């Protein structure tokens, strides 16, 4: 008996029918569907015990109080303690995993090179630290180190000597200050927003202008002229000519904010002319107060003074250490570069990503990033009382990163003591102020807290709040009338309020998956200007300014003043830019 072809078909037919009567085929279909739901290409969130930790956000000078939701030790989401956080703060816990993060750097090589260069410094040549966020305990460490080195210098952007008290203001005149975007502490600003009338003088309809009670579309760069005009140092006609507003508008604003009306005038950095205007309006001791700092140990007073970059002689810095770990104000590189000594100056940058000054440096050393970094945040500009709050790390920093203040301290042979703890001890010894803890929302006088508990509470996200300084006699700086700006050749490039950079990879939600924020590689201009430059929305173009050239994508926006280009990167800002289609 032989097996025929037909037999095989019959057998197969029988098996096929039989198989349909078993669970096998149906089960395979179900299993495949289940596999597709859980297949290994989809990452699985780690499970574990969930707990809350508290810290302060060190991404900007506001230093918002943060409640972190952690699975085990890993923070998985951040929320504000007293109100919401900005988008940078909300996504801060993702920064350690940013693709642009620096992880390795030639630390010992840089240390040897710096020591060598210090030893070889010529007469008149200096070693300098450039600190982008002065006032931190780490800044004090750098200042102490620079005082030990005989040719050391501590350079930082000038800080306004005043703080503002928004709770006291009935009218706020903002001269292009991004009050509702990134100025002061969001929780404080929005808590009292309904308590004051907001007048925004701004060349573009910024977010603050869009929500202001009154928007005054002024000429770019004429903020100071408006302040001087309102202070009576310029006539209404002169002010009108410089700002582009009508005399009537200026007089009406002048009446609204008039003397003794609890008015506050602000600009981005509280410049001397604005402080003088506030004093003139009777705001001293009310809406503006002297800026207070948390106490420091008495032995720290032998620190190097804070020097403004502009006051540094040209070609005098042999070794420059730039601490970029705490992002702060942007200083254009050409202003820094002309201070460097001729012939192979040594520049070392401490940064967590290669986005900043790293490209100009000989060595870029990786630092911890929030929320790995241990740092403190000096009182924000809208904090009338001194305070001391620590950005307590939520995560361990990876191996290979270096803390800038430790590096700088070791150059000067300072003991590697815990400066934050020393300062906390000094504050505790002062015995003033209260300790605010967020986990239990309590506020206790410092006198009733033991030193160790005080330190522990600060590291668990507590905050020390002192008493505001009594308003001493204040000599208002005299603002100087500026000559009217020359009509610009080309377009004025304005930058949006500076933001921590780079931001979390999730910012594609705001840059790419929507056009809510202006992306770093985009510029916005009025449709008329776009047409004049021969570009239209979506085009690629080159932005040319005296500071450099950038390849950008064009967005058109009729809320941008004609003649103005809006850019998101501070280094693009310029009085004369040109947009060229690629």
């Amino acid at each position, binding site marked *: 008996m032989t097996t025929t072809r037909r037999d095989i078909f019959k057998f197969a037919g029988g098996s096929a029918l039989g198989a349909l009567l078993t669970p096998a085929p149906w089960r395979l279909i179900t299993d495949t569907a289940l596999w597709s739901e859980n297949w290994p290409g989809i990452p699985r969130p780690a499970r574990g015990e969930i707990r809350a930790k508290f810290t302060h956000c060190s991404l900007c000078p506001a230093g918002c109080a943060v409640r972190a939701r952690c699975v085990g030790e890993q923070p998985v989401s951040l929320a504000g303690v007293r109100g919401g956080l900005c988008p940078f703060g909300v996504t801060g816990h993702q920064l350690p995993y940013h693709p642009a993060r620096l992880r390795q750097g030639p630390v010992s090589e840089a240390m040897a090179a710096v020591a060598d260069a210090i030893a070889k410094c010529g007469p008149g040549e200096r070693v300098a630290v450039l600190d982008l966020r002065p006032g931190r305990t780490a800044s004090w460490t750098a200042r102490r180190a620079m005082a030990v080195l005989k040719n050391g210098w501590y350079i930082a952007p000038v800080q306004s000597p005043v703080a503002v008290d928004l709770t006291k203001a009935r009218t706020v005149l903002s001269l292009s200050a991004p009050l509702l975007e990134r100025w002061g502490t969001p929780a404080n600003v929005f808590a009292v927003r309904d308590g004051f009338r907001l007048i925004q003088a701004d060349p573009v309809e910024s977010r603050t202008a869009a929500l202001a009670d009154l928007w005054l579309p002024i000429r770019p760069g004429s903020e100071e002229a408006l302040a001087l005009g309102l202070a009576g140092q310029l006539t209404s006609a002169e002010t009108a000519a410089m700002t582009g507003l009508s005399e009537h508008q200026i007089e009406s604003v002048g009446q609204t904010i008039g003397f003794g009306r609890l008015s506050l005038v602000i600009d981005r950095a509280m410049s001397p002319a604005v402080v003088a205007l506030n004093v003139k309006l009777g705001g001293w001791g009310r809406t503006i107060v002297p800026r207070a700092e948390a106490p420091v140990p008495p032995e720290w007073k032998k620190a190097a003074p804070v020097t403004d970059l502009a006051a540094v002689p040209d070609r005098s810095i042999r070794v420059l250490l730039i601490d970029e770990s705490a992002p702060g104000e942007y200083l254009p590189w050409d202003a820094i570069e002309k201070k460097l000594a001729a012939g192979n100056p040594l520049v070392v940058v401490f940064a967590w990503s290669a986005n900043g000054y790293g490209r100009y440096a000989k060595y870029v050393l990786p630092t911890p990033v929030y929320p790995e970094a241990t740092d403190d945040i000096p009182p924000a500009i809208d904090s009338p009382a001194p305070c001391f709050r620590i950005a307590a790390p939520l995560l361990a920093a990876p191996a290979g990163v270096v803390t800038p203040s430790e590096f700088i301290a070791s150059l000067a042979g300072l003991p590697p003591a815990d400066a934050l703890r020393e300062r906390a001890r000094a504050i505790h010894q002062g015995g003033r102020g209260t300790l605010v803890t967020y986990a239990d929302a309590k506020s206790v006088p410092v006198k009733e807290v033991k030193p160790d508990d005080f330190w522990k509470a600060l590291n668990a996200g507590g905050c020390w709040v002192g008493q505001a300084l009594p308003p001493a006699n204040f000599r208002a700086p005299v603002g100087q009338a500026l000559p009217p700006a020359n009509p610009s050749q080309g377009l004025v490039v304005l930058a949006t309020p500076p933001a921590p950079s780079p931001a979390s990879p999730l910012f594609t939600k705001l840059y790419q998956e929507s056009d*809510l924020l*202006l992306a770093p590689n985009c510029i916005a201009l009025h449709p008329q200007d776009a047409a004049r430059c021969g570009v239209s929305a979506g085009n690629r173009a080159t932005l040319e300014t005296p500071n450099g050239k950038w390849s950008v994508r064009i967005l058109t926006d009729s*809320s941008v003043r004609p003649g103005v280009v809006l850019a998101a990167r501070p280094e693009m800002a310029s009085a004369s830019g040109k947009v060229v289609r690629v």
Partner: protein
Amino acid sequence: MNAQKKYGMSIDVDRCTGCGSCMVACAVENNIPPAHAGANDRNGLTWIRVYKVDNGEDYPGKRSAFIPVLCQQCGEHTPCASVCPQQAVDVDPRTGIVGQMPERCLGCRYCMAACPYHARYFNWWDPRWPAGMEKTLNPDVAPRMRGVVEKCNFCHGRWHAAKQKAAAAGKSEIEPGDYVPACVEACPTGAIRFGDLNDPSNDLRHPDSFRLLKKLGTDPKIYYRSKRDWVRNVAQASRPVSSQKEASHG
């Protein structure tokens, strides 16, 4: 049995600065990946999306406003639920929340066409996070796969957590403060408020408030407010962007 809830939101357009905190907080909470390199504003994943709208005038007469648009949780004739061939969309009678089941979804995108608010999003790509960033994923929400539709569900993971917390304490009702969606928690200006619309004490349905595309009669549970007439008019237009290619700035 639990009392019937009807969760809803009140969004004050006059307080929204368009900062984008709600959009990124939503992505953090709901394990939404960063954009694929090829994604744009038409095919990205933004369960809540803030649109910039304006009054149509030119500088300096132009005035802008920001309108956050998320799933409107329609209560009547829920357009997406009625067209889904897979029964992957349901309206929970006990919460009023319109639920989307990615596991059931076959990716036909009929619901996206039906949704008048453009509040549904399709996974055009596999979910990918930069190396290491998957450690920050929220364990209360399952990441979705490529090829399915997803949308806002009022942070259902947080609702689960609140229910669980109540259950552990032996209670079947949650504390209102325990259930707050991520966008509400993240909003720095307090423009977004959330609660039970059946509870008259929380004032979510203010008489001055309006809902998007009222003419459609879908009974959304998101109530908007604005004192500006032009904003109220824009909210009744079919697509809440006056000129799509225009950008905003920040």
